[in-house]
């Protein structure tokens, strides 16, 4: 009989599909990638995704795919807890919910009750909505926030489609954030000034211990190098920085390794932030992961957010910034600040 890893179905062995999209071209294309999957028709994605009592950690061992239609709220205003990189008209689109990776600190496990991955197949409606926004002002749009689209590119092909859309809409800047090493899936695309590939990098101990199923730091760096050589605009995100007693030496080693492989002057910009999480998300995460040191850290709390405490957080940001300043000018380093601090800065 099966045991251990073989006990579980492979990812996407089961595909749930809303009845309304069974004939949608994107849905048909996605399903064609999984000829052996069991297809289960559903009325609405929430019938599966939002069931009560689901076990996020167990579902991560064998996530299902849920194909659905988004009916409204295609584009959201950027949340205050997210880095806007100095962009005034900051938005994000939720094209998919959840990620193929399994990072212990990820806010998605606090945000969603399920580890299954929902993919909205009606891309055309997102494009229409984005065009409406573009009639009013330029738009900076993050398309890979609540998921990792590049990691899913072989299955969805969404980065390719948004790249094509961006090519015809120069006032639109899109950011594709990823931890993947899957640049090869889009390596044939033409680099565009308004398409930013943003890689999240973590020190090796963090990647190995807490970012399950993700490519190693070296694999990500190698991928970034290839993308840079092709001429793509690259952003590096050192966010979230996770505290441990030796975080500084690990961080320093990561930065040194990164810029020994990648020419720093060709990086568009860098994002920096220490781990912080909303109270409601952490509450659910603690329940989901009773054995995770990151989740069980004794965080300090104020204004609805858990964090390392002002003293430690400030010290971590300052040290990280100093290390990065050895490679990049400070104006290219964007440090995440709390909404209140941002507000104060604006008033000043």
């Amino acid at each position: 009989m099966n045991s251990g890893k073989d006990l579980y179905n492979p990812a996407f062995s089961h595909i749930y599909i809303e009845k309304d999209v069974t004939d949608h071209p994107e849905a048909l294309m996605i399903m064609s990638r999984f000829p052996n999957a069991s297809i289960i028709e559903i009325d609405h994605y929430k019938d599966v995704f939002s069931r009560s009592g689901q076990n996020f950690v167990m579902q991560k061992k064998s996530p299902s795919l849920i194909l659905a239609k988004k009916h409204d709220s295609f584009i959201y205003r950027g949340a205050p807890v997210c880095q806007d990189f100095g962009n005034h008209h900051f938005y994000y689109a939720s094209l998919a919910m959840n990620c193929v990776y399994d990072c212990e600190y990820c806010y998605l496990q606090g945000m969603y009750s399920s580890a299954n991955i929902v993919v909205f197949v009606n891309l055309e409606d997102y494009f229409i909505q984005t065009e409406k926004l573009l009639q009013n002002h330029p738009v900076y749009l993050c398309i890979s926030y609540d998921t990792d689209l590049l990691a899913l590119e072989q299955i969805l092909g969404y980065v390719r489609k948004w790249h094509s859309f961006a090519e015809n809409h120069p006032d639109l800047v899109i950011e594709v954030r990823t931890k993947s090493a899957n640049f090869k899936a889009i390596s044939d695309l033409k680099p565009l000034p308004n398409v930013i590939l943003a890689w999240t990098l973590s020190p090796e101990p963090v990647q190995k211990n807490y970012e399950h199923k993700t490519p190693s730091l070296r694999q990500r760096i190698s991928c970034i190098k290839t993308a840079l050589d092709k001429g793509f605009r690259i952003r590096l995100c050192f966010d979230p920085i996770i505290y441990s007693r030796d975080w500084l030496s690990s961080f320093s080693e990561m930065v040194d390794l990164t810029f020994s492989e990648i020419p720093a002057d060709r990086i568009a910009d860098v994002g920096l932030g220490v781990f912080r999480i909303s109270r409601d998300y952490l509450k659910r995460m603690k329940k989901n992961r009773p054995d995770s040191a990151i989740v069980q850290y004794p965080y300090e709390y104020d204004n609805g957010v858990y964090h390392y405490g002002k003293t430690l957080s400030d010290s971590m940001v300052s040290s990280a910034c100093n290390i990065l300043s050895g490679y990049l000018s400070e104006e290219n380093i964007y440090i995440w600040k709390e909404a209140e601090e941002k507000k104060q800065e604006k008033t000043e």
Partner: protein
Amino acid sequence: MLNAAVGVTSLCSAHRPGSGDILVNIGICGTGNISLQKGTPVLCSKIVDISTGKSCYPDMLFRHPFIEGTVLTSPVPVTDKTGKQFEGKGIIVSDMEAYGIFHAGSVFYQPHQMFFIKIVSDYETGEQVSSCQASSLVAGNAATIAEWIKTIHDELSAKQQFFFSDEETALLKKASEYMKLTVSMQYQLNQLMKFYKLQYGDFAGKLAKFIDENLKNPCGSKTEGKKRFDELRKRFV
């Protein structure tokens, strides 16, 4: 369906299941699909209440040796006379319990802990299935089902919950009392030590040393206790 739901509720109320337990519903079913031989077990990935049209979905995390399908739960035996009014693709079978069991079970189990295996007993023509025939159909699949279920049960049971040792619990109690911690601070202390144990391992020796050095006697006031607690926090984070 109602009886089945009441039965599950009664059983689980008397024997509260844990995260390592599983709920298995094995029973007979009808089907309009004559290509399915009698005695074929179907693992249900979708359960439809034929009266309301509502559906529910057990998680399908584990590999298995069965065919998968949808089960329609009806308050009366489904025959060509009752009419099904359900349009669906794939394997479809009908029973009289699954939907009720799922809903009652959901109060006690998570969706990955519930399994519904229906064994084809008739072709929905109204033919009678005797209890002897039903037992025989189930018995013919019992070994396969039991072997499969056992592996899953072993896997789920192996997942241990985090806990402090007796020595650690006693030391935490002593530290808490000596520092005059409030209930909220006691929670913070437990959280701190839980983190420490996950990150660095057992803490009994280190906490005993802290108590020995800093808490020889109970603190004189809550203010002093708070000061000691801050020191403890600095040492253990």
